[in-house]
């Protein structure tokens, strides 16, 4: 595989994925929670409950956290009963978890957890389980998979939250695959691992999320709460994506125009409406805290600047810039991989040099025959 900008970025994005062991662990956890809820009569007396992933695991856009912080795993617990009241809905699921030996010590209580989701703390990740029910009155007929979830600050008073996890996944996959011939839909747990070879859009989202993590990481813990949430980044990026297959070109185009999809109304209120649920505004919190949009636009301006610069630099310059914006260690590991790859290709007799440019590759040209670099390891002149 040639060392060029696209291949480097592809590998940077790939290395941000959960590995198979981590994914297996997440799948096991999903399945265990699903089994528990499905077997709980206090729940099933109200109707069927179906459990499925949402968020970055479902979308294929997970980005491993920078430091020791754990990662998010999102799950939906969907009860097929539109008339159940919010409080009961929230509590039958919470109680099933609290009463189980397995989960009673993992569950995160109010005020930190339990406002919208029930959060289970595992060793390397936490799982947010969203109890919800069907929304029989979606804004448009297309939003038929819309759900109603619940929000509470005190455990007694509940308000309705509108969202559409199934619809969002389908929408995002459609955007990802828009110009690809094969299109695979993912809904079930089993299919997470066979996820189609990552699409360009998924990698673009991963790289942008990583840039965000590094940027806010360098601002310190006080800026942590202003980090733009992933659903906003994912939605804007998907809207700005038009099927590019070249990763750098796609990244540049998306980054340049994603902010256009942040709307403001006549009162200056921000809106990033869920494309599959008109009742959900991902930017609602921006209207309660002006620092949120402030940091978003400040970060985004830097993102454009950084990606444009990446595009103009030569191999060494590009690498140094990539280290600065995507993380020094993981980018260095990518280049070490390419370095070692060339050596093993030479040793296998597969390394070649293009006669016209001098470029190393494994496809065509003059063979790079066996030899041993020699000389002083260091020269102190």
């Amino acid at each position, binding site marked *: 595989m040639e060392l060029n900008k696209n291949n480097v970025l592809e590998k940077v994005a790939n290395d941000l994925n959960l590995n198979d062991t981590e994914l297996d662990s997440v799948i096991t956890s999903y399945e265990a929670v699903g089994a528990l809820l499905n077997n709980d009569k206090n729940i099933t007396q109200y109707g069927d409950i179906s459990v499925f992933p949402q968020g970055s695991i479902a979308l294929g856009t997970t980005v491993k956290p920078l430091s020791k912080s754990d990662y998010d795993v999102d799950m939906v617990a969907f009860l097929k009963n539109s008339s159940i009241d919010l409080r009961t809905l929230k509590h039958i699921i919470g109680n099933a978890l609290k009463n189980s030996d397995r989960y009673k010590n993992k569950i995160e209580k109010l005020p930190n957890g339990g406002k919208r989701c029930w959060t289970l703390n595992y060793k390397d990740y936490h799982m947010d389980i969203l109890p919800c029910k069907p929304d029989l009155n979606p804004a448009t007929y297309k939003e038929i998979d819309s759900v109603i979830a619940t929000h509470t600050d005190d455990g007694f008073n509940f308000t309705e939250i509108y969202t559409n996890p199934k619809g969002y996944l389908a929408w995002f996959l459609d955007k990802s695959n828009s110009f690809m011939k094969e299109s695979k839909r993912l809904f079930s747990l089993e299919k997470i691992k066979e996820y189609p070879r990552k699409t360009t859009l998924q990698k673009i989202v991963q790289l942008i999320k990583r840039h965000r993590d590094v940027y806010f990481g360098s601002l310190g813990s006080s800026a942590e709460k202003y980090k733009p949430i992933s659903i906003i980044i994912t939605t804007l990026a998907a809207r700005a994506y038009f099927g590019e297959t070249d990763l750098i070109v796609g990244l540049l185009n998306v980054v340049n125009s994603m902010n256009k999809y942040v709307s403001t109304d006549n009162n200056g209120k921000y809106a990033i409406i869920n494309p599959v649920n008109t009742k959900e505004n991902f930017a609602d919190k921006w209207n309660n805290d002006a620092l949120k949009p402030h940091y978003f636009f400040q970060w985004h301006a830097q993102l454009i600047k950084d990606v444009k610069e990446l595009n103009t630099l030569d191999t060494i310059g590009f690498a140094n810039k990539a280290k600065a914006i995507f993380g020094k260690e993981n980018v260095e590991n990518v280049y070490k991989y390419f370095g070692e790859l060339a*050596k093993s290709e030479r040793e296998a007799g597969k390394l070649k040099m293009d006669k016209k440019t001098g470029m*190393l590759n494994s496809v065509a040209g003059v063979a790079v025959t066996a030899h041993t670099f020699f000389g*002083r390891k260091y020269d102190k002149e």
Partner: protein
Amino acid sequence: MIKNKGNNPSLQIFRIVSKFPDLVESHSFKQPLFVNLRIKPTEQSRTYLAQIKLTGSKKLDVLVLKPNLAKENKENKNVPHMYSLKDGRICLYLPKEIDSSDDYSVVVPWISEWLYYYEVWKITGKWCGGGHSFKRRTNE
């Protein structure tokens, strides 16, 4: 007429020039015998100017003329596999791996490879191309 296959130095220059015409920037069949090559080890690398010089009867020197490696490594002079950072002389092979009866054009891909690992070394601090080193006589 050329008697020996490998021995004639200007024949070595001729071989390189005719094998890699697109890479050659300049050359000389008379003393000092040399050929300068423009090489980019990767698609987005800057273009390097390397020189294969035949000095004396059989000795083969390979240098990186541009960019000036000494200038760009002022802070860390420990550039791996160089005979002389100041001159830009790079080490591509063990003495036994090449002799005067060989076709020296085999060295050209090794130059590209050296530059490739040089770039990776600049980026990561690690030389990935393998190789031998020998200890200096002074204590290190």
